[in-house]
């Protein structure tokens, strides 16, 4: 009883907050819609989420038309983070421009000078590492295009003190690139919000290897289970009937239909003798 009430309270709060958002934004995500949201935890990556990238990805990012969001791997983004070596620092009246090189390309990073800030701030902590030419830095900022020239408007730029962070960043950028191009690793799907980047290096590499092997794109855990049953159950070239799959998996027929629909939509299974019998499309 107590549990049920708690549940109810939570759901109530959930729908209220989204409802309020919808009203101010004039649309977007409304309560009752979650079923139709993109599968596989994609919803966790809004375009305002900071995206770890390489400088080549910034240079290569596409902009369908001026004022549109930049896209990398087909995914819009605004905020980025990267690491690189400072090739030059030039102090302008209104900003400091750093040329940053991460081995994949070079980009200009501009940090606007806050007129009200104390210019001697740097001297307060003389032992604090500083941004110097040839030193490495971590940048958080926004990609901007001005007169066809791209630069990063930096929110924060700080020197790197543990150089392993450079390796870490390049691997994280790779993990996120793989997330968008190949879908989340299997364990991330079952856990919802967990991402490959949150795991240890060795572990996430392994996960991506298996995600690549099964060649299963971004689908729900249910569809993934239906796919694995279809793939691993001995069968004739007519494939398996929905009843067979349901009894094999110990799941209601209606759930099998749901999963199969997803798989049919992306074309990795096909109907054989009738609409309720499917086989895996072998690549």
């Amino acid at each position, binding site marked *: 009883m107590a549990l049920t009430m708690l549940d109810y309270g939570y759901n109530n709060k959930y729908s209220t907050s989204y409802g309020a958002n919808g009203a101010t934004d004039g649309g977007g995500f409304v309560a009752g819609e979650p079923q139709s949201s993109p599968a596989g935890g994609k919803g966790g990556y809004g375009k305002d989420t900071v995206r770890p*990238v*390489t*400088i*080549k*990805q910034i*240079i*290569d990012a596409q902009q369908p038309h001026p004022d549109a969001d930049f896209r990398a791997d087909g995914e819009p983004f605004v905020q980025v983070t990267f690491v690189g*070596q400072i090739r030059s620092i030039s102090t302008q009246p209104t900003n400091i421009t750093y040329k940053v*090189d991460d*081995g*994949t*390309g*070079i980009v200009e990073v501009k940090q606007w000078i806050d007129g009200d800030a104390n210019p001697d701030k740097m001297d307060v902590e003389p032992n604090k590492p500083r941004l110097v030419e*040839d030193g*490495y830095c971590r940048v958080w900022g926004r990609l901007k295009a001005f007169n066809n020239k791209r630069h990063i408007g930096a929110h924060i730029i700080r020197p790197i*003190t*543990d*150089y*392993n962070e*450079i*390796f*870490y960043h*390049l*691997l994280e*950028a*790779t993990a996120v*690139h*793989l997330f968008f191009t190949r879908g989340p690793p299997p364990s991330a799907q079952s856990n919802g919000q967990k991402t490959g980047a949150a795991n240890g*290096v060795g572990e996430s*590499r392994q996960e991506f290897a298996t995600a690549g092997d099964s060649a299963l794109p971004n689908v729900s855990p249910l569809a993934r289970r239906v796919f694995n049953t279809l793939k691993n159950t001995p069968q004739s070239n007519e494939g398996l009937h929905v009843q067979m799959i349901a009894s094999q998996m110990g799941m209601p027929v209606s759930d099998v239909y749901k999963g199969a629909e997803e798989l049919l939509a992306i074309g990795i299974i096909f109907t054989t003798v009738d609409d309720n019998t499917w086989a895996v499309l072998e690549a």
Partner: protein
Amino acid sequence: MSGSMSTPRILPAHLHAFAPGSSAHNTVRIMGIISTVSGDQATLTCLNDAVTILLNRDSHLSVGSMYEVVGKVVNIEGGHGLGLRVLSSTEWPRNEQGQLPDLKLYEAVVDSTHRYKSIFYDDGEAGTDTGH
């Protein structure tokens, strides 16, 4: 445009793929610990392999320290194989725990940059692309 400015990260074993003539693009980036310095040559050791570094007048490399070297792959005079002519070198210091950066991690990064090349280097560049 990015092609001329990118410097692929490699291990000593990949040097031949960026040798003069075999690739239009032979400016690379490599990491390791300086094991010997003599005259205008030094040896950079990365895990169990090493590469000969041809120094320029500005490079002051000290034995036992870790460096990231950006350089051009060249034939060493006298038929001594391939080496790297230094364009720039940066010392990678120890962290607050007193540890040097992890070269095993560097190896993983090199592997991943060549495996998922599209976000790191242009296609025209040589390397050990394993075809993904």
